[in-house]
């Protein structure tokens, strides 16, 4: 049994090296993680931009500078042109020696808020006393942490796609038919292909996390979270590799699968906790929830251990349900 598993893994390794998969698989996600590392802080520092006519009193410009970024323009028409561009940038011009706020008109409810806030900032009046307390984790950028979780889900998916593509290649080259009459069982195929996918995923998960958040995360918990999630990439590999006869069908299935796999858990970040109940049936929701606790902390619902266990058993349950169907599809013992 072990010899057959090792042989199949060796075969997958050879395919991966021959097709440069390993090279691309390592480079593409890591480059993306590097890109995200530089990109996410700028998103975190997002603030309002104001287009301002340079003849505005410098004291007023300074006051506006306290609540956002300033872009100075010599002419009022240039300010208007800037305001009319695609992004949301309000403007401030001088008309009849008086300041005038310029907006595009599509700001909705925000227009009134912006108007009053700009007026208040320009007045320079101090109305209330303010104090600021930074929590223990005050320097944290949550975007980086959420970015790392998204990368974990993507990298796990990429690993399982190698498994799916190998199955499809075997189908297309009729090698699967040969495997069907060999002593190789479905279980052995699952172990061999699954292990290969998991090792690849793990390498990418660890390296992308290192790139994005460095050593600020508890890698012990990260590895535990990954161990809880191992049945999910196997399920993904089987769903795509088992159902698709060729690459075109695989991509078609993947396009729909991706929507459920990644988009739904991401949505839970912005919707209220009480609505999360609609996602409880998804193992990937629990996987997201598990890693959310590794990177951010418990934001409600079951703790790390319990959500990890739910991830493991819910995805294992789906593997068990799909197993007989896929065995018939792959025509293995």
């Amino acid at each position, binding site marked *: 049994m072990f010899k057959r598993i090792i042989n199949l893994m060796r075969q997958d390794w050879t395919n991966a090296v021959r*097709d*440069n*998969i390993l090279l*691309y698989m390592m*480079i*593409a996600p890591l480059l*993306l993680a590097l890109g995200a590392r530089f*990109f996410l802080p700028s*998103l975190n520092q*997002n*603030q*309002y931009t104001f287009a301002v006519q340079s003849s505005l009193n410098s004291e007023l410009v300074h006051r506006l500078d*306290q609540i*956002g970024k300033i872009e100075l323009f010599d002419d009022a028409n240039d300010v208007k042109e800037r*305001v*009319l561009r*695609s*992004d949301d940038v309000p403007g401030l011009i001088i008309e009849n020696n*008086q*300041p005038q*706020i*310029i*907006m*595009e*008109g*599509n*700001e*909705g409810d925000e*227009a009134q808020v912006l108007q*009053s806030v*700009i007026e*208040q900032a*320009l007045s320079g009046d101090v*109305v*209330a*006393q*303010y*104090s*600021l*307390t*930074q*929590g223990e984790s*005050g320097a*944290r*950028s*949550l975007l980086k942490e959420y970015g790392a979780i998204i990368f974990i889900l993507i990298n796990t998916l*990429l690993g399982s*796609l*190698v498994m799916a593509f190998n199955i499809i290649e075997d189908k*297309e080259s009729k090698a699967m038919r040969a495997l069907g009459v060999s002593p190789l069982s479905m279980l052995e195929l699952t172990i061999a292909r699954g292990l290969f996918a998991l090792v690849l995923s793990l390498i990418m998960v660890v390296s992308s996390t290192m790139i994005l958040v460095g050593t600020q995360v508890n890698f012990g918990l990260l590895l535990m979270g990954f161990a809880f999630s191992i049945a999910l990439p196997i399920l993904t590999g089987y769903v795509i590799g088992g159902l698709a006869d060729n*690459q*075109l*069908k*695989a*991509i078609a299935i993947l396009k*729909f699968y991706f929507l459920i796999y990644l988009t739904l858990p991401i949505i839970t970040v912005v*919707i209220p906790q009480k609505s999360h109940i609609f996602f409880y049936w998804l193992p990937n929701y629990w996987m997201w929830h598990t890693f959310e606790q590794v990177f*951010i902390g*418990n*934001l409600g619902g079951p703790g790390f251990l319990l959500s990890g266990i739910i991830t493991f058993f819910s995805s294992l349950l789906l593997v068990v349900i799909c197993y007989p169907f896929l065995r018939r599809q792959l025509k293995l013992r």
Partner: protein
Amino acid sequence: MKRFISMFMQDLILANRNGLILVTGILLIAMLALVLFLPKQLKIHNEMILDLSQGTILATYLNNQGVGEDVVFIEEQEFNQKLEKQPNKVGVIFSGDLENPVFAFLINSQIPMENINLLKASLDRAILDLRGESTATIPVRFLRGVMQTPPLNLKIIPIALVFEVVLLGFFFVSVMMFQEKQEATLRAYRVTPGGAWNYILSKNLLFIVLSIAYGLPLLLVGFGLSINYGLILLLVVMTASMMTLISLFIAVFFRNLSEWFFVGVAVLVINSLPSISYGIPSFSPAWMSWIPSYPAVFAVRDVLFNAATWVDVLPTIVLLLVLNGIGFLLAYLAIQRKLLKEG
């Protein structure tokens, strides 16, 4: 022409046989469900406010403004519990009274000081409102007139069109090419008089047709007949064509799907970045506008919600035309000189 039609029919049959049309149909149903069932409004506040003042005047004021539950609190314990579970929010504690208001901010994540100052100005204004001392002194001018804010369920349609519908070609055309390589149909095609022109145009037309079949029902369900369909479909067709041509060009340099996939995903992720600017319009670094989907998504938004005319979106149309020309040239050269010449 006959060759082109025959090639197009072959591609259409291949797409249907491989479930591509079925999957597009399923995706369309999922998108339609989103448009129909997504709430029309979703208010997300970045702060949570606890009013510890006597008479909870600020809480009453904010509730009257429609700020809503889970934002304004008068119980400290509930406020602390909720804030702990939402570290991305700024906690604001109000104490004192209207004459001597005191605010304490609790922050658990990185927030620029400018945004804190913006919040201070907003709270100052609320206090002045409560005192009856606030006055609007600076006039506001709306350059396009005041427009209604689109409901959330319709607001996602430009995203669906530019980052989902028009990407059908990007995703599938490469895989079609790899399959043709693998099944040796490309080798057979090389000895026919079809040539690169027919090959590119047939595939491009297939995905333009699929994009329209995917996008048009979305638009009809979302907007009925109240929008400029000529203009919006032109934008969809040009963006879909551009993505298909780029994908054809890239795919020539890879042997199979496994090789292409990771590079394809990287291109896809970069192309999807402008969706962040669409969601947060105040975030638009200069480099973001260089990504072709950036002007496309905002042009679609302007046509759908801001009654933009041909003149308004002309720069985007010209840009897409130029990018289509470059894409076609690159795809033609790669297919003519490499794909159709390989042994």
